[in-house]
């Protein structure tokens, strides 16, 4: 047992160290900052949803469904946020060889890893459910049974979220290990998973309607597929045996899964570590190209060779295109609502915000220097001008963001008969936003590089630069939106778009100038 606690401690430290950057006080500060950011995110999402749901459900006398609904949402979010990191943590941890060579069972190693993951999930779900509990209490829920069930339910449902995370990350690792090209297959799996989650989140927003029209059907779901959440609801209603049953349906399968997976752990690790080297290459004619072209080609190959990088930074482009096609196909159904909203004059600015919001998530540069990792010596010892190095990274970002932006604006513009002048000005503004974000991302990564991460997942999902890159991308968009409130009264939307374009291009030029001067010094100090 003592060995297990030691293993859990090590694994928890490994998980938390993924959030840290640098060493000493800086590491503590960045680690703490990242945890606070995650905590604020949990409280914010839970606050927005729980108070909204509480008002809706309270008005139809079904407030007792609030906590189960929020528990479903909290678990789902927790899974989404940890599944990719879990796959890297469990199956690509650099300490796996060391741990498995110790006189401990594979079961203990697996249990320790999963327990560390459980504790991380518990921190998120705990804050999420605490906020939801406050929303329930403010709207009239309460009593000893309520708080006890909330506490016990949070502890137990975290097992469920951790189990789902385990299953998904295990299946992804196991199946991909069977394919020679791991990265392509895992990208497909993650895209499929996210589409599933999106479909699920649409269902959650329909829950209010489902409760109002078909309460019995929802109760049946809670007694069937979502039994743990149904048991939580019964516990909240004062049914203590239901809480006892919840312990059985969450803890027992959790331990069974740990045992089952640990028995296959070495097999999966062996398959993932297996080397496929063919000895049939014959040296033929070789092509030559320029230095910049070589650097750019390297960026492209890294992008498509790293599923986590492609998935996290390229999903915005897929979403843009899918959204535009969906919007065009649903044109007939959407049109009446657009008229209700005040016609295209009102809708276009809202659509611009939505498109800008997605464009801002396409940020490959904010992690691209960190992804050089231990191979950074190759570039540092090469006679490469820093501006060529920066330029190749920015160009990749634009290659991902610009075509999707142009095509989606064109599709929506044609489908909804928007004036060409409007489409052109909006497209120009979005393209300049993408440029600003690509250059800004590079600056962020120069200030917050993470060169020693044990795997790419930690760089892309958990590094400070990735956090700041994603949230920071919304800052120029937010400023532009706020600026439109007064500006929209005195000028056309199209003129405002062109002004925004000019401002963002100027800001981009300023950042490029900074990169060529101070950015070079920062690069050499990494």
């Amino acid at each position, binding site marked *: 047992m003592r060995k297990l606690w030691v293993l859990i401690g090590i694994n928890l430290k490994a998980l938390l160290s993924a959030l840290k950057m640098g*060493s*000493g006080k800086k590491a503590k500060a960045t680690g703490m900052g990242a945890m606070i950011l995650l905590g604020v995110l949990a409280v914010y999402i839970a606050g927005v949803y729980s108070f909204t749901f509480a008002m809706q459900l309270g008005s139809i006398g079904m407030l007792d469904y609030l906590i189960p609904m929020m528990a479903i949402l909290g678990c789902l979010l927790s899974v989404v946020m940890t599944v990719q990191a879990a796959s890297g943590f469990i199956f690509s941890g650099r300490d796996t060889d060391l741990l498995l060579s110790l006189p401990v069972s594979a079961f203990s190693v697996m249990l320790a890893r999963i327990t560390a993951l459980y504790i991380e999930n518990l921190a998120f779900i705990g804050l999420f459910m605490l906020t939801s509990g406050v929303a329930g209490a403010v709207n009239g829920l309460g009593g000893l049974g309520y708080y006890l069930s909330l506490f016990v339910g949070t502890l137990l449902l975290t097992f469920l979220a951790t189990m789902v995370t385990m299953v998904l990350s295990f299946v992804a690792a196991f199946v991909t290990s069977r394919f020679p090209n791991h*990265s392509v297959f895992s990208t497909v799996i993650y895209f499929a998973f996210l589409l599933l989650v999106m479909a699920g989140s649409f269902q959650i927003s329909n829950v209010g309607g489902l409760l109002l029209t078909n309460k019995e059907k929802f109760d049946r779901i809670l007694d069937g597929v979502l039994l743990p959440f149904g048991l939580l609801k019964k516990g909240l209603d004062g049914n203590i045996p239901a809480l006892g049953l919840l312990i059985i349906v969450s803890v027992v399968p959790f331990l069974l899964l740990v045992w089952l997976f640990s028995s296959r752990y070495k097999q999966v690790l062996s398959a993932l570590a297996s*080397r*496929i*080297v*063919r*000895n*049939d*290459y*014959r*040296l033929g*004619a*070789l*092509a*030559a*190209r*320029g*230095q910049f*072209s*070589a*650097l750019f*080609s*390297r960026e492209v*190959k*890294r992008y498509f*060779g*790293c599923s986590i990088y492609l998935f996290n930074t390229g999903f915005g482009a897929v979403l843009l295109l899918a959204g535009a096609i969906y919007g065009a196909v649903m044109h007939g159904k959407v049109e009446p609502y657009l008229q209700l909203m005040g016609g295209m004059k009102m809708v276009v600015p809202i659509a611009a915000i939505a498109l800008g919001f997605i464009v801002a998530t396409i940020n490959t540069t904010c992690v691209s220097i960190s992804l050089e*990792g*231990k*191979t950074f*010596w*190759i570039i*540092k*010892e*090469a*006679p*490469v*001008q820093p501006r060529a190095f920066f330029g190749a990274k920015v160009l990749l970002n634009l290659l991902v963001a610009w075509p999707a932006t142009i095509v989606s604006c064109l599709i929506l513009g044609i489908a909804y008969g928007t004036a060409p002048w409007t489409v052109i000005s909006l497209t120009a503004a979005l393209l300049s936003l993408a440029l600003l974000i690509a250059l800004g991302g590079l600056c962020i990564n120069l200030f917050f590089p993470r060169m020693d991460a044990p795997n790419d997942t930690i760089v892309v999902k958990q590094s400070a630069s990735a956090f700041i890159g994603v949230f920071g991308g919304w800052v120029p968009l937010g400023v532009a939106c706020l600026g439109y409130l007064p500006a929209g009264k005195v000028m056309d939307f199209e003129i405002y778009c062109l002004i925004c374009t000019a401002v963002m291009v100027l800001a981009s030029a300023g950042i490029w100038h900074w990169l060529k001067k101070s950015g070079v010094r920062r690069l*050499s*100090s990494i």
Partner: protein
Amino acid sequence: MLTISHFSKTYSGGKRAVDDLSLTVQKGEMMGFIGHNGAGKTTTLRCAAGILDFTEGEITIDGHSIRTSPVAAKSVTAFLPDNPDLYDFLKGIDYLSFIADIYGIDRVTRKERIGRYGDAFGLTTALGSAIGGYSHGMKQKLALISAFMRAPKLLILDEPFVGLDPEAAYAVKGFLRELCDQGGAVLFSTHVLEVAEKLCDRIAIIRQGRLVECGDTESVVGNSNLESVFLELERGAAGKSEEEKDNA
């Protein structure tokens, strides 16, 4: 070819890794850089290759300062770290092509050189596979091919023989000598003192960041052997520090 003058390097935590080190490596010369673990060898080599920055002293390669004219200095240099992490997402041949593009090696020359060094290291047939599947030794060989392929004026290597099979190690020694015979210069660190003694024209010994011995191999070794000289210097320096502590 390589001039290091009064070079010092202090890390951000305040640790002084190298202290006022000066040495030169002439054209056609092979210098062995020897020292215990943590003596400052890797720091010196990395600074000379332009991988780490520094504020004290000066390092010039073929007349170009690595600090103020890094691109010019690097274009005539090749560096091989002790544990070469390469791009796992590229095939071996793609990596070599990438390096060839960066150094502007034309198509015909790169094919000829890749074929020559690839065959010598027995790696040509595996160049079509992803580097991610390579063993440590194969990666080391690939990094060596990429270094020799550039025909550098200065070759800086950190522990180049670690992980190599005897045949490849023999080939490396031959290529290093060939490079020097053609007017190139080589500076490499090693813990294998027999290799340094047999291979190097000059030897530099570093201890706690300071150069304690530097000269022709024959004059450094004298009638003894490099291992004895190195151990004697280490013991002498250790005794001196004990004495200084006692006096203090």
